[in-house]
């Protein structure tokens, strides 16, 4: 019945011409039959009313309004161009940010995400801390939950050196179980997934699956299957290519996947095997069987956890197993939360939203100014019977047409901008990663439409209402540009300018804070001497060298470099501060029981002269001695920094103490080390405000093939020249060993990811601020020009009666400056609030930064005075005779 009605209605819409003709004929006949045909009303109007029964009146109206809107806008191309480009900027920044937010935070990364759960070990002590899951525990968990989970997969995230034929790049990798891709419902683009045999730890399965991005980067050659890539120097056969944009559980995703049984599937360069039950390295995700009630999951996990606790109390007591939403951000271990993601998305969207608001205020200005000159047209329409609502709707439609045009161009701009931004990240990332698809999808499209509609409502609702309300028949007599309700319109326009100035100031101050923060980060003191420091990263395993041969190479290199003129000290270290990641160990007093205090410290394998090379002095004790650099030395020793010493032995000396690593791997397990030296703490990353504890062990106790030679030269000015020398010497010593990185300490710090983050923040916020400033200046200029043009007669009279043009100029400037000053006052208050919110994202800058709070208003004031200057000048050039004659 209802459907039948809609079909008939649609029929009326599609065949409307025929239907209208039928109605016309019918009424004509009716009229002819009447005794007094003249009594038949207005046929056209009657037909119109009859047609309303078809229910398409609204569509007619919309089409009509749109047609009129297009015609009106075509008639004033200057206005249309200004409005559309303003909106394109305003909506474009929102679409751009939203497509980033969408790709990174909102869009599901894999199929049916609601079925995927993270599974975590969790302490039952009050700390409630999360713990990763060991491989044997994972196997038992899998066997115990087959009813609940269709697939229970596990993975560990690691860094590897990947050489796909174009040099070694540090790459994010994931060691995964055989069912991993199936659990994510993400079939491979090419090749086969890993097998159960390849998953078994120590299987020595040298196979890899590469990301779609990596494959594309290497020419998207279908023959990639079976080709060999080198991972940490070992040859691996490529057996598959992951689906396009697949990143696993979070972002960023690995660029290469290895089976858990691969030689390096766990721990960088470490043969840290996964098979001990005590090695909790795996993140577990489960794909629920369809139809499994979510309430049944937690009890199933708890049951397995209890069984594990009983069977292996030493390892599993005090831990249960829980489910949670897996974190979407890779570098946030443990479960994620929808609330955090939503909050992050909201925070990221605030700035562009303010830019759009400024753009809208600008357009309100423009529409009001233009509306006043259009008063005559509106009055004619109103006197011809256009209801106020009808006229309002017409103006709103114009706004919507403008907003959609701006939105379409904005979307194009944003696609280009996000593409550029993403491309600019890749070279500075210290690792290769895969990113999800950040392109435009239906969410971004709907988002853009929403931004456009919201914008059009904000900027056109008020002008539409005000203008149609004032269109009275007396306006018919007025000519466009005549004076009129100046006072109210004028104050309202001033209010808009105040709003624009205030919001722009907010953005400029925020941009300034980020700029300062980027500058401070770039000049941050790391806690050691940067000048005259050089770095050369090498990896003898890439030449196929074993440990003995590798040690020889390092020794030869250090010896040769030390003899170079100008070189003060040379050392070698496994971890480089400010490289984006470290390897940490829980350090505890030797012999202490499991409950005793332990301190997380960055673990670094170093040669002699490490402190001297970094420009640090020994606080106590001695440096490592020659004997401790070769394996089999007498006593295990370590050097700690004062940050570690303070935490472990507050107020006491560290020298001579015995320490051990709580979570040690097999090689180091149970090894007790004597502290022989204490050095000052250095920062390990910019993000940490205080230096992080470090523990250093000598080369003899531990070998890592990829290490960094650190060279200190006397003359900082000779850094560049010395780099070339170092490269030459390295070739001379052994030309088969590649130098994978060669740079100065300063360049290393400058090219780091953290600096990039602060710089990207500064760049984005400055761009927002620049757009806002530009819009505010246009707004001030527009309002000022408009005001001056309306007061032509007033100025004419003033000049005619002998007013000094210069005084007039000052008067107009002063009026503009006053409005700007009010806006700046409000803006400063807003900026102080924003500073508090932004503080957490800033480096070395407080939210209330006097420099920024002083300079930003000055920039704004100067720009607004310049914007007022041109119209003010025009005021002084008014020809009195012309001005008076226009009356």
């Amino acid at each position: 019945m209802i459907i039948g009605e809609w079909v008939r209605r649609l029929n009326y819409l599609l065949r409307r011409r025929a239907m209208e003709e039928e109605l016309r004929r019918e009424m004509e006949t009716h009229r002819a039959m009447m005794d007094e045909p003249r009594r038949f009303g207005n046929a056209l109007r009657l037909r119109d009313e009859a047609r309303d029964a078809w229910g398409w009146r609204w569509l007619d109206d919309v089409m009509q309004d749109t047609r009129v809107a297009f015609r009106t806008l075509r008639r004033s191309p200057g206005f249309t161009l200004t409005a559309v480009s303003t909106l394109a900027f305003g909506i474009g920044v929102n679409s751009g940010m939203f497509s980033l937010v969408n790709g990174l935070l909102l869009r599901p990364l894999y199929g049916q995400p609601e079925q995927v759960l993270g599974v975590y070990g969790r302490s039952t002590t009050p700390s409630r801390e999360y713990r990763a899951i060991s491989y044997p525990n994972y196997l038992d968990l899998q066997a115990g939950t087959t009813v609940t989970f269709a697939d229970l997969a596990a993975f560990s995230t690691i860094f590897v050196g990947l050489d796909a034929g174009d040099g070694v790049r540090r790459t994010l990798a994931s060691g995964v179980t055989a069912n991993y891709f199936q659990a994510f419902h993400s079939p491979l683009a090419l090749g086969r997934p890993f097998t159960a045999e390849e998953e078994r730890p120590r299987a020595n399965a040298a196979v890899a699956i590469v990301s779609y991005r990596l494959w594309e980067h290497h020419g998207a050659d279908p023959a990639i299957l079976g080709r060999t890539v080198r991972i940490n120097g070992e040859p691996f056969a490529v057996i598959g290519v992951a689906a396009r944009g697949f990143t696993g559980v979070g972002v960023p995703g690995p660029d290469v996947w290895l089976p858990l049984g691969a030689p390096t599937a766990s721990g960088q360069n470490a043969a840290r095997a996964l098979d001990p039950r005590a090695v909790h390295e795996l993140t577990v995700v489960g794909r629920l069987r369809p139809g499994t009630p979510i309430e049944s999951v937690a009890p199933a996990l708890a049951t397995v956890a209890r069984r594990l606790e009983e069977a292996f109390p030493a390892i599993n007591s005090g831990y249960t197993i829980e489910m949670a939403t897996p974190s979407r951000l890779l570098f946030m271990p443990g479960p994620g939360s929808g609330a955090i993601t939503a909050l992050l998305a909201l925070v990221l969207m605030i700035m562009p939203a303010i830019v759009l608001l400024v753009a809208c205020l600008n357009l309100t200005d423009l529409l009001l100014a233009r509306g006043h000159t259009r008063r005559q047209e509106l009055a004619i329409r109103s006197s011809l019977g256009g209801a106020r609502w009808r006229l309002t709707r017409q103006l709103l439609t114009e706004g919507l047409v403008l907003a959609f045009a701006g939105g379409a161009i904005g979307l194009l701009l944003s696609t280009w901008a996000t593409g550029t931004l993403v491309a600019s990240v890749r070279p500075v990332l210290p690792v290769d990663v895969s990113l999800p698809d950040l392109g435009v999808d239906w969410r971004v499209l709907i988002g853009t439409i929403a931004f456009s509609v919201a914008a059009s409502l904000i900027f056109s609702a008020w002008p539409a209402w005000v203008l149609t309300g004032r269109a009275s028949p007396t306006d018919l007599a007025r000519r466009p540009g005549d004076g009129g309700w100046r006072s109210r319109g004028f104050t309202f326009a001033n209010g808009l300018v105040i709003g624009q100035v205030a919001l722009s100031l907010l953005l400029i101050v925020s941009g300034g804070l980020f700029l300062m923060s980027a500058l401070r980060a770039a000049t941050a003191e790391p806690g050691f001497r940067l000048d005259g420091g050089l770095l050369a990263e090498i990896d003898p395993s890439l030449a196929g060298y074993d440990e003995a041969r590798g040690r020889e190479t390092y020794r030869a290199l250090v010896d040769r470099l030390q003899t170079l003129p100008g070189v003060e000290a040379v050392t070698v270290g496994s971890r480089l501060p400010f490289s984006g990641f470290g390897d940490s160990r829980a350090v505890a007093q030797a012999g202490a029981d499991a409950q005793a205090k332990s301190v997380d410290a960055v673990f670094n394998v170093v040669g002699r002269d490490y402190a001297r090379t970094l420009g640090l002095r020994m606080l106590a004790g001695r440096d490592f001695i020659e004997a401790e650099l070769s394996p089999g030395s007498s006593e295990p020793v370590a050097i700690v920094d004062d940050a570690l010493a303070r935490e472990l032995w507050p107020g006491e000396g560290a020298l001579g103490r015995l320490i051990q690593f709580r979570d040690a791997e097999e090689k180091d397990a149970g090894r007790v080390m004597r502290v022989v030296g204490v050095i000052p703490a250095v920062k390990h990353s910019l993000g940490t405000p205080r230096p992080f504890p470090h523990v250093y062990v000598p080369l003899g106790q531990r070998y890592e093939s990829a290490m960094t030679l650190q060279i200190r030269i006397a003359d900082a000015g000779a850094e560049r020249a010395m780099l070339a020398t170092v490269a030459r010497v390295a070739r001379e010593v052994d030309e088969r060993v590649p130098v994978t990185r060669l740079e100065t300490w300063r360049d290393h710090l400058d090219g780091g990811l953290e600096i990039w983050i602060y710089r990207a923040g500064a760049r984005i916020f400055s761009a927002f601020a620049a757009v806002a400033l530009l819009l505010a200046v246009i707004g001030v200029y527009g309002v000022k020009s408009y005001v001056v043009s309306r007061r032509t007669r007033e100025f004419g009279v003033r000049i005619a009666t002998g007013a000094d043009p210069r005084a007039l100029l000052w008067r107009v400037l002063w009026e503009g400056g006053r409005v700007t000053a009010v806006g700046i006052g409000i803006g400063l208050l807003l900026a102080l609030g924003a500073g508090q919110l932004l503080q957490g994202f800033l480096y070395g800058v407080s939210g209330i930064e006097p420099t920024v709070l002083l300079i930003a208003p000055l920039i704004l004031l100067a720009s607004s005075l310049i914007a007022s200057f041109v119209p003010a000048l025009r005021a002084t050039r008014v020809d009195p005779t012309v001005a008076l004659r226009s009356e």
Partner: protein
Amino acid sequence: MPRDTGLPPGTLMMLVLRVLMRQPLHGYAIAQRIRQVSADELTVEEGSLYPALQKLLVKGWVKAEWRESETGRQVREYRITAGGRRQLEAEIAEYRRTTNAIGLLLDRA
């Protein structure tokens, strides 16, 4: 939109359907018929009749067909459908109930 016919709103459609129950008629004849049967008490303006007819068409309660009249004119004749009959019955019942209730109220209150 609906013009003053002196009829309670919605009643016109019921009257048209009722008139069409007896035989199919064209627009002019419907108006004539309503006036005649009501002994000139009810007159239907064209301005109300045609919107009502269009509405009935859209609802599917009547069907229209072009036909030649006795006077040799092409007229558009309306015929009530099964759905229309059901609708009419429902509306008459509803109308009776309402007038009854109003009558009771006027008598006894």
